[in-house]
C-alpha cells in the first residue's frame, strides 16, 4: 500500500514539469513585435477605463484600425484580452504576450503555424546555421487587422536585348 502511494506521488512529480512544458509551448527567438511607437504598454490608458464588451465601431480612439479579418465573426476583444490589454487572448482564455502572438494566429491558421515553426513559412533573414537564427513574428509581415498583402509596384523588367529587337509576342 505504502509503495503504491509512493508510486503515485512519483508519477505526479514527474508529470508536473511536463504539464508546465505543454502550457508554455516552444520558445522561438523572435525580434520585438512591431508595435506603434508609444502605444505599449496598453494598460497605461486601459487600466483606468471601464470595459465595454459591446461590439461596436470605435470612435474615440483607434479609429484608424478597420478590422478586416473575419470581422463578421468576431471583434477586438476576441483577440485582445478585455481585462488585461497588455496581453492577447487565446481561445481557451489563456493570456499570451505580444511576442508570442504566433500562438494566437496559429489557433486558426494551424497549417501555416506548423510551417512557420519548421522555418518554411515567411521571410527568412540572417543565419540558417552557425549564427543567430531569428524568426519573425506574424505581425512583422501581416497586419493582424488587415492581413491580406496589397499589390506592390514591381521592380523594372530587364532591358530588352539589343533594345527591343523583336521579343514581343502576339
Amino acid at each position: 500500500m505504502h509503495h503504491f502511494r509512493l508510486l503515485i506521488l512519483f508519477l505526479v512529480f514527474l508529470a508536473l514539469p511536463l504539464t508546465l512544458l505543454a502550457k508554455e509551448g516552444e520558445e522561438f527567438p523572435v525580434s520585438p513585435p512591431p508595435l506603434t511607437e508609444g502605444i505599449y504598454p496598453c494598460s497605461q490608458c486601459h487600466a483606468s477605463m471601464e470595459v465595454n464588451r459591446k461590439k461596436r465601431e470605435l470612435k474615440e480612439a483607434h479609429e484608424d484600425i478597420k478590422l478586416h479579418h473575419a470581422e463578421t465573426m468576431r471583434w477586438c476583444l476576441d483577440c485582445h484580452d478585455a481585462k488585461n490589454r497588455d496581453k492577447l487572448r487565446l481561445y481557451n482564455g489563456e493570456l499570451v504576450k505580444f511576442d508570442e502572438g504566433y500562438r494566437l494566429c496559429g489557433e486558426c491558421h494551424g497549417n501555416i503555424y506548423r510551417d512557420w515553426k519548421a522555418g518554411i513559412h515567411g521571410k527568412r533573414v540572417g543565419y540558417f546555421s552557425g549564427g543567430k537564427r531569428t524568426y519573425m513574428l506574424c505581425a512583422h509581415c501581416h497586419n493582424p487587422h488587415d492581413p491580406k498583402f496589397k499589390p506592390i509596384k514591381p521592380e523594372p523588367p530587364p532591358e530588352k536585348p539589343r533594345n527591343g529587337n523583336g521579343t514581343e509576342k502576339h
Partner: protein
Amino acid sequence: MEMGPKNISRREFLRNLSLTALAGVSVPLLSSCTKEEAEDFLQKRYVEMTEEEKKRVIAKLEERYRQKYGKKFEISTKGPVPNTLWGYGLDLSRCIGCRRCVYACVQENNNSRHNPQLHWIRVIRLKRGNLINLENSEHYYDPALVPEPGFVYMPVQCQHCENPPCVKVCPVHATWKEPDGLVVVDYNWCIGCRYCIAACPYKGRVFNWAEPSIPSEEINPSVHYLGNRPRMKCAVDKCTFCVQRVRVGRYPACVEACPTGTRKFGNLLDPNSEIRYAIANKRVYRLKEDLNTEPKFYYFFEA
C-alpha cells in the same frame, strides 16, 4: 626563273612586307589587350593552384579591385562545408513577381548593371493553367502593381544541377561542381566559347558581352573568388547560391530580399533543415525533370 638583282630585291621586298604585316597585325591586337589580361595570362586553374598560389592571386586581385573601385576588398576562398548539399525551395503560390530578388542579387553579386545588364534571376510570368509550356511566358511584364490576377510568377536561376549539362560541355574545365553541390565558374579560366550557355536548359548562365559596368558606390566588397568578385569581359557567370554567404551559414541575398517569404534555402543532407521539411511536406517538383539534370531547385504550390 631568272636569278638576277631584280629577283633578290623582290625576295627582300617580300620578307620586309611579311614582317611589317606581322607587326601590323600583332600591334593592334596586343595593344588592345589590357594590362589585366597580360597579368592574368599565365594564371593557373583555381583547382590546380597551391595554397601559396591562391594567396598570391587573391592579393593581386584585392589590389586590382582596390585601385579600380576604391574599396578594400575581402576575397574569400572558403571551401565547401563538409556534409552539405545546398538545396533551394520556392513557394510559387507566394511569388508576386515583384523582382526584388533580381535586384538584390545584382547588388550583392556585383553584376554588370548596363551594357551588358546581367540578371542572374529571371522572373517569368505564366498564365494560370499553362505552367509547363514556357513558350507562353512573358519576361518583360511591367504592370503598375503586382501580382496581376490570373497569372503565376516563376523566378528561374541556375538550378545547380546534380547532373549539370554545362559542366559536361565546357571544353576547358572552367566550370565544375563543388562537393557541396554548387556549380561554379573560374572566371579567369573561361575562354568565352559559350557552349555552356547553349547547353543549359534553364538559361541559368549569362555572358559578360563587354567589360562589366558597376558603379563604385554600389560595389559589394565582401566577395568569394568563385562567387561575386567583379568579373571581366567575355567570361560566363551565373547564380552561385551566394557562395560567399552560404558557406558561412547566411541565407542567400534573394532569400532575404523576398517580401512574401517565397524563397527557402537549406542543407539537403541535414534532415532537420527547412528545405528537407518542405520536400517532405509540400508537393515539390523541379523544372524540366525529364532532362534528368537533377536540379536542386524545388518548386511547390500551396494554393
